[in-house]
């Protein structure tokens, strides 16, 4: 998904990997590196790792997925996809069940999905604290 405009001020890092549960370790390291680069607190990093782990475990993945981090001022936009279907659609779950949307709402500032030709893409927004390493 999102195309970057050449010369734009934002910074972007993208990782393409197999759409399998075993990619979780790589995704965690990617987030760890991002947290070190941006000066995110340990807890924010851990929440973000859990958010992406939950996406990998609960969403139906295409054989190859891309995880992209776009740093724009005080916000990091993480997009992951393509996914077979929109993972934020309410599941056929009981009232006590934690669906992905519910989980993500507690773990990141905002979670939003978009459906494109190649599938659904999920965007997770994370606020970077003032005075951190992000510039």
């Amino acid at each position: 998904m999102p195309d970057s405009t050449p010369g734009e001020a934002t910074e972007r890092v993208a990782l393409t990997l197999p759409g399998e549960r075993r990619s979780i370790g790589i995704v965690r390291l990617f987030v760890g590196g991002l947290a070190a680069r941006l000066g995110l607190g340990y807890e924010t990093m851990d929440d973000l790792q859990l958010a992406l782990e939950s996406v990998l475990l609960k969403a139906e993945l295409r054989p190859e997925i891309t995880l992209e981090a776009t740093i724009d001022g005080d916000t990091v936009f993480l997009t992951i996809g393509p996914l077979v279907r929109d993972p934020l659609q309410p599941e056929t779950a009981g009232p006590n069940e934690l669906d992905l949307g519910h989980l993500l709402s507690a773990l990141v500032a905002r979670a939003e999905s978009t459906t494109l030709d190649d599938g659904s893409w999920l965007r997770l927004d994370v606020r970077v604290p003032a005075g951190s390493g992000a510039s």
Partner: protein
Amino acid sequence: MSLSPEQLEENELLRAYHERGDQSARDKLVEANLPLARAIARRYAGRGEQLDDLVQVASIGLIKAIDRFDLERGVFFRTYAVPTIVGEIKRHFRDRAWAVHVPRRLKELNQMLSSLIQDLSARLERSPTIAELAEAAGVEEEEVVEALESSRAYTAESLMAPAEEGSDLDRLQTLGVVEEAFERTEDRQLLATGLRALEPRERRIIQLRFQDGLTQTQIANELGISQMHVSRLIRRALETMREELERGGIDAGDR
């Protein structure tokens, strides 16, 4: 079968839970049998797993035993619960068999980071950054990320190694056998939701984090445990819920 007053009371609680859906009866059964779960967990400590983690696994086994016990079978609850708990621990060891070897320096750094996160969180009144942890530990930031990641990998000693020095039995053989009769009662009951599969403390943590919106640090303070431990418990609880729901889906599909 002659029953003691305790066993009669236990049967009454099991009947109240299974026949009338009395959740408080279920909670009482869990509470009354937690010492049994802890005792079984202690038998498997020192084999590369933290006792606290094994107690969690044993507690899940206990809850499964309560949920799946069939009063009509005419056996004592504990006769059914012990192999169910042991089976859960055995499965836990098997599930961890893929674990990679974590170098000693990373294990030690991970332990150091666990206490540094607590100390720095208290001092800074916020969660420390990777750079702050690296500076406090005297290591590079990459090492901090690596050590934190290593905490997700479990060290699993070979289950084929002798259980004790000079013993003919390997560790797998000593982990207990689930009797066939008990296996038949497995997966009989479809749980309404994965939340019911959780041990009370895990359920409380999930509620605090995802319903009440408390942060890991706030939960850690409320429960008197470390933030890293809260993180581990959240993941374990979510995994348990996912497993239970998947199991429920399979059962439902079979009907």
